[in-house]
């Protein structure tokens, strides 16, 4: 992308030039004074993406040139494909439209859901954030866990799941690759319900995203009611899976897989797991602009998100929402998106086939 060379001065200069060239319509003016920026979230007010957008809205308002009003708008429906399809049809007007996608928007796209009429590669990414996840076992079965799944293979597990095509695809596939026998109970409403099911002893295995793990499940581990098994890991700069910075003492799935008989960190299954892991966790939530947005507007947003990341208090205020995971902006966000939506055809075919065979899920 070209915009990475632009400093703030260039933006200002361009803005002045644009303003001079188009004094009335001023389409490419990167001053947002008096304007209202809308962040479109394709989920309801009550979800995790709403929380994420509501966190960034006031910060973005302060950081954008001209301190515009920033509002969050919700467009839920059809598993977030309604909002994404709508955004696909929007074109640049005055740079006040942002779209916040999530893993739940990425997954239908990767799985060729018939409702998907959007194309990630048409959009311009300005910011991306990620998270991690931790899998844990109940105390009884956890006693058999020795860093490998070898002794867990003849245990029957039960797991509260939101659905095989959701983010739960990542843990389900991981356990499957380890040769574990995990029976999902589908149809719970959120991971919180899954944890409750685990606490009641109805489920015997569970996973939570990093922040929920720290908030709810870590206490169970302390009380001896749960045993942490592995984290999904995090991505380093060259795209390798490394230990999660939030849980440096916990082995990653990759490590456990390597140590477990019959689990391989190469081949279609592994590539598929890795691709869906990236789409669901390290590049979970992405902020996009319409594809035809002029460079100066893009640069203004990237600069604003950079400024947010550079705030002295950012680590403190973002802890609850983002955890220790970095916020990517500009070209890095672009790269995160590319990694998130590039799945080799064989890997995709593997997942589609596995979903069909294991859970009878067919996306028409």
């Amino acid at each position: 992308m070209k915009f990475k060379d632009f400093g703030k001065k260039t933006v200002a200069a361009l803005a002045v030039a644009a303003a001079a060239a188009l004094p009335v319509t001023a389409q490419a003016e990167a001053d947002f004074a008096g304007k209202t920026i809308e962040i479109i979230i394709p989920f309801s007010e009550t979800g995790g993406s709403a929380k994420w957008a509501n966190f960034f809205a006031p910060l973005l308002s302060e950081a954008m040139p001209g301190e515009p009003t920033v509002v969050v708008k919700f467009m839920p429906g059809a598993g977030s494909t309604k909002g994404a399809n709508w955004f696909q049809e929007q074109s640049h007007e005055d740079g006040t439209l942002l779209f916040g996608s999530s893993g739940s928007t990425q997954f239908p796209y990767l799985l060729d859901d018939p409702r998907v009429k959007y194309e990630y590669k048409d959009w311009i990414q300005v910011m991306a954030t990620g998270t991690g996840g931790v899998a844990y076992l109940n105390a009884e079965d956890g006693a058999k866990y020795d860093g490998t799944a070898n002794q867990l293979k003849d245990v029957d597990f039960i797991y509260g799941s939101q659905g095989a095509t959701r983010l739960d695809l990542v843990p389900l596939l991981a356990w499957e690759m380890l040769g574990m026998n995990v029976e999902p109970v589908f149809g719970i409403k959120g991971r919180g319900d899954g944890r409750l099911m685990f606490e009641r002893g109805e489920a015997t295995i569970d996973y939570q995203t990093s922040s929920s793990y720290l908030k709810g499940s870590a206490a169970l581990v302390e009380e001896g009611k749960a045993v942490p098994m592995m984290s999904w890991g995090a991505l380093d700069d060259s795209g390798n899976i490394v230990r999660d910075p939030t849980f440096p003492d916990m082995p990653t799935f990759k490590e456990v897989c390597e140590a477990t008989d019959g689990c391989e960190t190469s081949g279609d299954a592994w590539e598929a797991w890795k691709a869906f892991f990236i789409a669901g966790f390290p590049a979970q939530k992405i902020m996009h602009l319409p594809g035809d947005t002029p460079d100066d507007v893009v640069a203004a947003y990237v600069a604003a998100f950079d400024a947010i990341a550079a705030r002295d208090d950012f680590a403190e205020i973002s802890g609850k929402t983002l955890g220790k995971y970095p916020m990517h902006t500009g070209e890095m966000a672009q790269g995160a998106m590319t990694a998130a939506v590039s799945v080799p055809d064989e890997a995709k075919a593997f997942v589609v086939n596995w979903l069909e065979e294991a859970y009878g899920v067919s996306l028409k």
Partner: protein
Amino acid sequence: MDTFISALPALASAWDLILQPLVLGYLVLGVVMGLAVGVFPGLGGIAGLSLLLPFMFGMDPILGLALMIGMVAVVPTSDTFASVLMGIPGSSASQATVLDGFPMAKNGEAARALSAAFSSSLFGGLVGALFLTLFILVARPVVLAFGLPEMLMITIFGLSMVAVLAGRVALKGLAAAGLGLMLGTIGEADAGGNLRMATYDIPYLTDGLKLVIVGLGIFAIPEIVSLLRQDRSISKTTTLGAGWVTGIRDWFKNIFLSMRCSIIGVVVGVIPGLGGSVVDWIAYGHTVQTTRDKSRFGKGEVRGVIGPESSNNAKEGGGLVPTLLFGIPGSGSMAIFIGAIALLGSGQIEVGPNMLKSNLDITYAIVWLLALANVVGTLLCIAASGGIAKLTTIRFTYLAPFLFMLISFAAFQSGQNFEDILALCVIGLIGIFLRRFDWSRPAFLIGFVLSNPVEKFSNQAFQIASFRFRKGFDQGMDYLFSPIVITLLIITVISVVLGIRQAKSIMSEGESQSGAKRAPLLFLLVIATYLGVAVFDASRIPDINMTDKIVPLVIGGIALLCCLILLVQMMLAPEGHVLFADRELAGEDANATYGLWPTLAWFGFLVLMTGLLGFILALVLFLLSFLRVRAGASVPRTLALTVCGIAFMCFMASTLNRDFPPGLLQSYVDLPWPLR
């Protein structure tokens, strides 16, 4: 005991936190905003909290909590206005209030109904807070004792209320509930993602129907249309009789009922995953069962208002337990509440298990802020009720267009789809016919509300039970038949037996005449056809996804069986039998000035024009033509009222940051807001 004593200092410091002028000021501000939002049907706490969210960032925690709790606490109080005065269920918490509240308003007793409702709300809120103060300390193990079989059993208990509300012909009530359950399964199945009576070509259907829309369609539209046809005011008498003092006296006479229903509210509210939508029905059923003279239910029995209203405010308190202790929101507004708490201050309050350990004072502050907000909100509502009750004396033709406007706005405010208002229209039509042929609408709605829980809990409980049975027969039996399950089972059986015995005397829909066979028979056939198609549709889901097909198959099959028995009965019964109830034969509807279809056509006109021109332009045309032609208003008056209506709509939409659904026109021409 030690637990309670050690909590006392936290309770004291909670009061220190609350009793500051600034905190109380914010609480009152929140209450006033909550009242303003809650008065409008369909705009619940979710819309209100979304308004506050932008200000929460970095705000002093106790001030932010006061503001938000003030807002959330009064919504179940203020939505009573719409339920009682207009027959519109303001939110899912006040559906049962409509059954007796609205008939009271029609009898000219609006003020009495309102003040009885508000007193009950206040009392419920206070009982809830008191109960929580003690209970929250020991709540964790109690909440964890409620597993899937227990939740399934509570759902079935809720469903058993159908027995009380089934109406004069029990089979019809059962079939109505079955229809509600089946409509609730439309869309993508939660478990396996298979589609039921939906297609990916119509994405709207894959999400299923929303409770707001079904509630408005089933209760509000039939009442609005019926009143509009009669061309009168809501109240039959022009002078409003019994006033608000009588209402308070009514409540005091039934204080024990109010107490019991409050406890029901807290207890059901505490259980995560059930939500509050069934609480008011359980409370209503309980009220009916414990009332000696049941003849007045559905016609304006004040106990029918006191019961549900006592429970729905108490429920908000109960809902705090899963929210604060487990970080699991009991409702949509609680989900936003959790999100907003993370924004407060520097995010030091963390909902979850730590609320009891490190933040007990904040927890207590939340509980008692809720109680205090109830007091302030109720006093304001009672003060306003006398004046607002006068609305019932206005000629209804002047109110109706604005009610159509409001419920359309309410219907699409969650999704901003044109389909929302189309669905409202279709469900409204179903509601009109259910009412006309005396099929219990409460039974239908209970079925719809509980459709998802019934399916989810039975599938999940079955799956886990079979998992346990594989480990050992004892383990499976222990899991399924815990003491709680057995207790609930006994309660349910008693309630059903009593209910069936009493049902015949309870006319939740008021009186109706019976007559010729043709129309009721035709309606039965339409319902049976839909059920048949839905069952066939479910049967085509592959067997590997048994979880997605079993409930529609079983429920649909039972409902279909009811319809077939009814069909045989109808063929055998003579004309004029109770089976052939038809409101178009005698009574208010039959003597109405205007016919059903011309009246409904007005709403159809608004829907059609919205599809063509977008909502605001359609509304301009609708208001102008309705007021001028149907209401016969003078030109200046027509113009003035239209301008007021449109201005109000734009104000609401811009404050709540909503767009209106676009029509065909908008896909060709780029128009400025609010026309776009």
